[in-house]
Every structure is written in structure tokens, then in C-alpha cells.
């Protein structure tokens, strides 16, 4: 993106790694969702679903701790939720990577911008916990 030759090479490298990171995150998390989905369907085949009214108090896997607990007991829906969690963290990992690469480029303005975005997401994580 920058006009100077040295930065151009740097930016190109960042682009390739960022792209690979995003693709890998999607493939891995979707494979986990698929695996968990199959286990979930095998175990819950006959059960009747009801999503007519939103009941937040009934949500089983609404915290990271609960998801990990469920994964350890090999529950299908917990594995699905773990895959979803990984999918959510893919763009967040992308931000963290971008911060590091801008640090290598000595582009401190964009290191700072990346940190602001990370802070906003962290805030939303903790505001959820406080709920």
C-alpha cells in the first residue's frame, strides 16, 4: 500500500499471511462444527425443537468455561459451540497478527489503531460476562 519498495514487500507478506490465517480459521472451525453437528444429531435425533420464544436462562453454552466443560464430556452441541467460538476468534486473531506485523513495520499509528479495536472487543467480552 505504501509507495516505497521496502514497505511494499512487507505489506505483501502481511497480505499472504493474513489471507492464509483467515482461510485456515474458517476451515478448522467449520470442520469442528460439522463434527459436533453429526454427534449432536446422532444423540438428539428424536427430540422436538422449540425456538419460538427466546429464553436466555436456558442457554447451556453461553460462556467459554461452559463450552470447555461440555467439550470434555464430548457433547455434540458443546463441540458445535466450540467451533463457533473458534470462528468468532478468527477475525480477532487477524487483528492480533496485524498489530504484530505493523510493529515490525514500525508503523506505530496502526499498532495503536489495532490495540483500540482489540480493546473494544475485550470490553464487549467482559460486559457480556458481567451480565
Amino acid at each position, binding site marked *: 500500500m505504501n509507495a516505497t519498495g521496502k514497505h511494499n514487500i512487507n505489506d505483501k507478506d502481511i497480505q499472504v499471511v493474513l489471507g492464509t490465517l483467515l482461510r485456515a480459521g*474458517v476451515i478448522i472451525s467449520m470442520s469442528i462444527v460439522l463434527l459436533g453437528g453429526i454427534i449432536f444429531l446422532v444423540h438428539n435425533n428424536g427430540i422436538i*425443537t422449540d425456538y419460538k420464544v427466546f429464553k436466555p436462562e436456558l442457554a447451556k453454552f*453461553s460462556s467459554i468455561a461452559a463450552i470447555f466443560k461440555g467439550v470434555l464430556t464430548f457433547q455434540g452441541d458443546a463441540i458445535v459451540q466450540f467451533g463457533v467460538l473458534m470462528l468468532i476468534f478468527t477475525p480477532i486473531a487477524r487483528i492480533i497478527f496485524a498489530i504484530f506485523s505493523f510493529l515490525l513495520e514500525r508503523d506505530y499509528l*496502526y499498532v495503536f489503531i489495532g490495540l483500540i479495536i482489540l480493546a473494544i472487543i475485550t470490553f464487549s467480552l467482559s460486559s457480556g460476562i458481567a451480565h
Partner: protein
Amino acid sequence: MSVLLFTIIVLFGAFLAGLLGSLTGLGGGVIIIPLLTLALGVDIHYAIGASIVSVIATSSGSAAAYVKEGITNIRIGMFLEIATTIGAVCGAIVAVYLNANYIAIIFGCILIFSAIMTLKKKVDHTTLDKTDKWAKFFKLNGSYPDKGIDHDYAVKHVPGGFIMMLFAGTLSGLLGIGSGALKVIAMDNIMRLPFKVSTTTSNFMMGVTAAASAVVYLHRGQIDPGIAMPVCLGVLTGATIGSKILLKTKTDKLKIVFAVVVTFLALQMIYKGITGL
């Protein structure tokens, strides 16, 4: 309805939504939320949670290719993500307390607006006039490759674009959609970016914007694995196949048909929302 039947219906519907969404540029969420709420009677809070997950999957998937090609402007993306993530978190928090009928009405209005936007002819407003002091300070001006040639472009009206992005992020968090139509307004019409750069950068930003609101939804219990699983698998598969077909087909007629369908669904959601108040 049994779990298996529900999963199959949603999987099939999400696949079609992803396919049509990527062919027409509207995104999968705009059709998956009406499908879940109108046809299957799912509460809109669950539908939003599942939809935002599919937004992350499709945007990360397609952004990967564009980023590698160097069309995406990573600096513009990150700079504007400050606005979209702030908006997304606010939207997601408001969504939790907002009555489902109000959400349905707002959703319907945005759907109609998005449908009109996809039918509008795209005009490249590209400018080379590098005088914007904000664009200079944040190093937003750049170039992108097209058929082997690098095209330079300059960025205009940065504060205006930033404010528009706050709004786009809020609606994304509130409704569980990518709000691509609004992002394109901010980047094409206000900041005067070349069309290719604005579309790919908007896609790149969507993942982070959606992740910011998704963590709020997750903690609130709005992401149910039973719905999220078929929705994200279906939408991602459909969108992947759609993007491969896209290179070979003319989608003008499909766009019109899809816009009519989306408008019809939107009117139904608005009607249901108003009668439910």
C-alpha cells in the same frame, strides 16, 4: 418439529441463502433471518445470533482471497473497524433489550433499502486528488492491481465515512447482518474509493465487526448450537459455490428477482412486527 428435520430444512435454506447472497451481493443473513422467523417460527433473537456467525464465516472465507491478491486496503479496513466495532457492540447490547417486533420492523426497512442498493448501477468515483489531510495522516491512499496494472487512488471525506461506518456497525450488531450496503455507501459514495477496493475492504471488515457483536450474543445465550450449526455450514457452502459460479454468469436478472423476493419478505416482517406490537 424434530431436531433432524429442523436441521435439514435450515441447512437447505441456508445453502440457498448463501448461494443467492453471493451471486447478488446481498449476503446470506438477509434471507436466513426471514426464513427462520417467518417460515420456522424461530424467535428473532436466536435468528440474529445464528446469522452473525454465518456472516463471520463467509466474510473471512472470501476476504482471504482478496487480501492475498492485494486489492483490500488493510489500513482503511483497520481504521474504519474502530467505528464499526464500537457500533457493533452498541447495537448488540441494544438488541438484547429491544422488543422483537421493533427489531423485525427495523430489519424489514433495512432489507428493502439493501435490495434497492443492489439494483443501483455501480459508478466508480475514483479520485486522484491527494489533498485530504486525514487520508494523509492515516496513510489511507493506496493502489490496487487490475489486469496486471497498479491503479492509484486517493481517499476523500474521511470523517464522513467514519461516521457512516459507526451507523453501519450499529445496524450490523442490532440485526445480525453484515450491512454491506451501508459500508459500500460509506466507501464508494463518501470516501470515493474505487468500487473493487470498497467491496473487498468491506468484506474484510465484516468479520471483525461481526465478531465484536457475536461475543455479546454468545454470552447472552442468543447463539444456539442447534440453529447456528446448519446455518453457518449451509451459508458457507452456498457462498463458496456461488463465488465460483459468479465468474462465469451474468447476474443482472437474478438480482432483480432476488430483490423482489427480499422486498416481499421485508414487507411481511414489517407487517408481522407492526401487528405484534
